């Protein structure tokens, strides 16, 4: 059996876990991160990608609002290549309570969020697709953030500082000696057993934290709240559009890359249903009809896919329902709470506050192992977000390569562009035409960003995330995983199969119009033309 010794073990490869791994590594400690699936494959990658200004919480949850605006300012500096500083609007529809607008301005003032009241005319200038019937508008410093890029950049920085990132590795037991946890026992993708020993275990596994705690013999109750979102195939808005009313279903439209997202529904789910990511037809109806109220064009735009995530809300006191439980950060020192030494749980919070959560967890872990070094994650830019060459020099350096291709790579990887792109023709050959992913970018991702399969590759590069949902590039990607990732031909075909099944999960709930046409085409190609054979390894079960 393989055995690894380290200082800190991080369980969970979402934004928080990756953030902890980075923070811990920056303070000079050795670290191993364990993720059962892929980086950002859970709740982190299943939200609307809003870079909160905090305004959404300003009326009801002042503490969260303050955390948001503070992290908002930090992320705009340290994660520049993951963030788009679009700005955001809060608009009041004729059917909404007009007094909420005032409350919001007041709340923002208390929280230190610069909310500016603007005229309806000005709002329509900023966002021409906005519903012209709005009564009032407020401008806030909202933006957008790409959770995949953010998590990957944190993990990349951690591993460049010596951390070990192990994805597709599942914790199946916590090794405990008396009242002290000493390590974790895991199983990797090839079904090999692996024991990792460390001084402190940081449980950053979000909603799955309940399972991890129970492995250590601790009871921790999560209140999973499912949120569904819908992606439409065009970026119909340039700025974030929020509805000016107390948070409810379908009240936000967030632009992101080449698409827009309509969010979100909120529904409590029993803990044994947290793996169920299906979006119901009713949820689709709500999201589309509410999205249309904010931006009427939504009704005439193709729905690309729908997905859902589960918020890891912890009920610390006697809180009741999903939207009412605080989105605040919960840091648990299990030695104080349960008398178990060496285990910390960091949960609650949101994508926006991942860095702060990581800081809090790392501070506590450092205290436990006697390290005094202060947190510096708010000052050091993430890999790719450093100040680098200017646009002019970039254009000069890559002249001859279409600017749209250079621009796409830069948009996704920031200054790392310089390690990805070369003027060798093979390097910039397009593999995914929708999202302009080059062979060079795929090679870089496979070799540097913990890519184990085609779905991982999608999260790192956006291959297959565009309008065609991987119609042609999925096949090309599977071929390249053999070449650069050492996958056997059989493995590469299984990955292709799994990738297309995974895409289907999101397409299925919005299967009409152009989406249906595209799905039919994809089916013809892979079943009709290629005759893809089904992998025999897994038994498939319908999960609904």
């Amino acid at each position, binding site marked *: 059996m393989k055995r690894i010794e380290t200082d800190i073990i991080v369980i969970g490869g979402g934004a928080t876990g990756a953030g902890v791994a980075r923070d811990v590594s920056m303070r000079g400690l050795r670290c191993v991160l364990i993720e059962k699936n892929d980086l950002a494959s859970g709740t982190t990658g299943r939200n609307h990608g809003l870079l909160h200004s905090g305004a959404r919480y300003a009326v009801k949850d002042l503490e969260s609002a303050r955390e948001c605006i503070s992290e908002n300012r930090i992320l705009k500096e340290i994660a520049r290549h993951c963030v788009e500083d679009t700005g955001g609007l809060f608009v009041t529809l004729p059917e909404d309570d007009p007094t909420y607008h005032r409350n919001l301005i007041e709340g923002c003032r208390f929280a230190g969020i610069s909310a500016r009241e603007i005229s309806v005319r000005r709002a329509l200038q900023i966002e021409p697709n906005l519903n012209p019937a709005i009564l009032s508008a407020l401008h806030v410093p909202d933006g957008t953030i790409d959770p995949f890029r953010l998590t990957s950049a944190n993990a990349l920085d951690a591993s460049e500082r010596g951390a070990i990132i192990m994805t597709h590795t599942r914790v199946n037991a916590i090794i405990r000696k008396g009242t002290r946890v000493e390590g974790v026992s895991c199983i990797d993708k090839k079904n090999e057993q692996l024991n990792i020993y460390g001084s402190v275990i940081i449980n950053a596994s979000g909603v799955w934290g309940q399972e991890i705690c129970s492995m250590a013999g601790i009871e921790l109750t999560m209140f999973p709240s499912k949120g569904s979102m819908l992606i439409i195939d065009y970026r119909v808005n340039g700025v974030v559009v929020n509805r000016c009313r107390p948070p409810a279903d379908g009240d936000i439209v967030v632009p992101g890359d080449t698409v827009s997202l309509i969010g979100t529904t909120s529904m409590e789910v029993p803990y044994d249903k947290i793996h169920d990511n299906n979006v119901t037809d009713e949820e689709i109806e709500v999201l589309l009809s509410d999205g249309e109220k904010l931006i009427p064009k939504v009704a005439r735009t193709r729905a690309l896919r729908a997905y859902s995530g589960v918020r890891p809300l912890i009920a610390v006191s006697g809180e009741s329902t999903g939207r009412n439980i605080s989105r605040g950060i919960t840091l648990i020192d299990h030695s104080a709470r349960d008398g178990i030494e060496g285990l910390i749980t960091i949960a609650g919070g949101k994508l926006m506050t991942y860095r702060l959560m990581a800081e809090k967890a790392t501070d506590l872990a450092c205290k436990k192992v006697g390290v005094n070094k202060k947190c510096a994650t708010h000052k050091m830019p993430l890999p790719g977000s450093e100040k680098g060459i200017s646009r002019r020099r970039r254009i000069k350096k890559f002249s001859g390569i279409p600017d749209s291709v250079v621009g796409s790579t830069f948009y996704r990887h920031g200054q790392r562009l310089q390690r990805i792109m070369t003027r060798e023709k093979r390097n910039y*050959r397009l593999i995914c035409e929708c999202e302009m992913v080059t062979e060079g970018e795929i090679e870089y991702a496979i070799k540097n960003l913990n890519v184990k399969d085609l779905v991982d590759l999608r999260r790192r590069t956006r291959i297959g995330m565009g309008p065609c949902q991987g119609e042609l590039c999925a096949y090309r990607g599977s071929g390249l995983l*053999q070449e650069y990732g050492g996958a056997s031909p059989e493995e590469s075909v299984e990955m292709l199969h799994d990738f297309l099944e995974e895409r289907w999960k999101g397409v299925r709930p919005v299967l009409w119009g152009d989406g249906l046409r595209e799905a039919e085409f994809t089916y013809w190609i892979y079943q009709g033309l290629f005759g893809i054979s089904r992998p025999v390894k897994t038994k498939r079960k319908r999960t609904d």
Partner: protein
Amino acid sequence: MKYDALIIGGGLAGLTCGIRCAAAGLKTAILSGGMNSLHFSSGSIDLMGYDDEGELVKKPFDQVKKICRARRDHPYAKAGLATVKKAMEFFIETTSKTGLTMNHNGDMNHFHITGLGALKPTYLSQESVFSPRGHDILNSGEKIAVMNFSGFRDYYPEQTVAYLKKNRIFAGRDIVLAEISLPWYMDTQKNLHEFRSIDLARIFDTAKYLPRIAEEIRRAAGDAAAVSLPAFLGIKNYRTIRKRLEDMTGKFIYEIPTLPPSILGLRIDQALKESFIGYGGEFIANERAESGPVDSGLLEHVNTRNSGREPVSSKYYVLSTGSFFSGGLASNSQRITEPVFNFKVDADTKRSKWYSWFFFDAKSHPFLSYGVRTDKNFNPVNEKGNTVKNVFCAGAVLSGYDPVREGCGGGVAITSGFACAEKIIGELKK
């Protein structure tokens, strides 16, 4: 009346129908909205590949016979076994006249090899996929080389070989991987984003590079008796090019269809268009029918996208607009429709019934067998419930069959296109 037959949709069904009509001396036109599904097909014609249990069909006409008896809504049943046979003969004859040979294995199916190394049952194939000589070599146990063109990103031969070897026929075979390259071509190539099968087909279409390519193949294949290449052996001059390449290399050259555009399919498309125009048919490209009034069970005329206020009229019309992808069927979140004339469709009303839970479900997807409801004469029914007697429907716009699960897309297109033409010819004779 401007035409005897106006065919809406220029795919396999529409072209077959058009050729039959024009060959019979009818004044025929085809409105074609754009590329058809031949552009991403295998280039083989599947007649009946799998039975209702998903088992391989050995003798396709026997299965067609069964279907004619058991499934009255299937297009084959509406056409009848005799018409299916006649349609196939007609298709073989038509393509052969233009120089494209479509081979079959008597009354048996044969296999074509897919990019992922699967063996798919089919009825007609081009000679690079099925021919007596190729058949002998594949059965002889001689060495095979599976090749790719260096830097070609739309094909991965390792996958072909790995899955091919899982099949009984190829399990113990000596199969080698090899790569050919033309470096001097790569250097002149300006835009590598466009390095697709069509670009390679163009190189092959000009015989200029053949000696170098042949030399490369000989070098890379060693003593293999047969060589497979991703399908890009030219479009127009395919037959002579392939023959010369076989002569120069002394090897049997096999083609494997890859990502679209499908060169094998393009050859059929080109052959059929050539034949249609040769018979005096009018091929109107980039034109779509948009609507048309139906009065007392007859379609009066068709309004098209480009004809402005001038309607196009004909004695008979054929609707061969394909399924969802080609726009023959449309859908929104509530229902599935036929968008041009609003003919009645056979489809589930609840959206959650349209699809299967898994993408690669063995049962395929219900939406694949949705389509326009027709009577035994292929006449559709309009929204008022009247049969429209001067319109016939052909190809993927029809309901009652699943082209992928049954492996019969090409066969149904040809059969129904041919059957509609026969009906029009018969009516006009009266």
